[in-house]
């Protein structure tokens, strides 16, 4: 697999993992102690998070097995943008303008790093 493809796939899977985790824990009352943790373990969303997280980590390994870590690691910050978009679509979250500005700054940085290969 092309290392850059592995990197983008890792970022998207990692972002999906965050969305699944939020769906899994979003309405849990964790103050309930052991019982609610058990509910978490039984939650399909939490399992989806675990599986996505595992594969995201695996694909990250595939990416950095041949890429420079000073190149690949900061590119991971594209994940902030992907999570923001997915959270609007799947969690109906509202992303404030100030956060879009921050994400735009990150995107400029990512573009600079991307060009530096």
């Amino acid at each position, binding site marked *: 697999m092309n290392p850059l493809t592995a990197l983008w796939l890792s970022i998207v899977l990692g972002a999906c993992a965050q969305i699944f985790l939020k769906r899994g824990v979003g309405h849990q009352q964790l103050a309930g102690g052991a019982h609610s943790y058990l509910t978490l373990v039984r939650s399909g969303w939490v399992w989806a998070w675990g599986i996505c997280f595992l594969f995201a980590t695996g694909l990250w390994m595939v990416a950095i097995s041949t890429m420079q870590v000073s190149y690949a690691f900061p590119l991971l910050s594209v994940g902030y943008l992907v999570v923001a978009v997915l959270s609007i679509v799947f969690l109906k979250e509202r992303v404030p303008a100030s956060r879009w500005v921050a994400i735009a*700054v990150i995107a400029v940085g990512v573009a600079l790093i991307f060009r530096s290969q």
Partner: protein
Amino acid sequence: MSTNSIVEKPELLLQASTAVKKSALWQWAALGAILLGSFGHLLIKLGVTGGAHNIGGESLVARIGHYFLQPAALAGLAIYGAGTLLWIYAVSQRNISFLYPLTALTYVTVALGGKFMFGETISAERWLGIGVVMIGVAMLQFSAKEDRS
């Protein structure tokens, strides 16, 4: 000038030193989390890099499974996990809005690791990009107060 001078009230010195100790602990935890997190990534890189075990013909799942079993990669994952535990401690002591921008430092430590552990050449353009990403990550926190959930 101050009515609460340490000469008049020596117990203030004790209070101050306790406060320093308390603050030092979360500072060390936050710093440790950033350093361990970065070192974890670098060890993972060490575990999966190099030609000896890069088998191109294998399936993707087999290749990933193979990487997860590399000793240095496993150590990297464990150290990364330890860093996460330290981070959770730091977060329990200070507001996340104060601590979060510190995570941007990871981009510098990982890049320096790439330079000195793996001999990567980092161009001025890449450093600039890393700096801009760090500013953006730190800026994310400005919008945190607008969150209601």
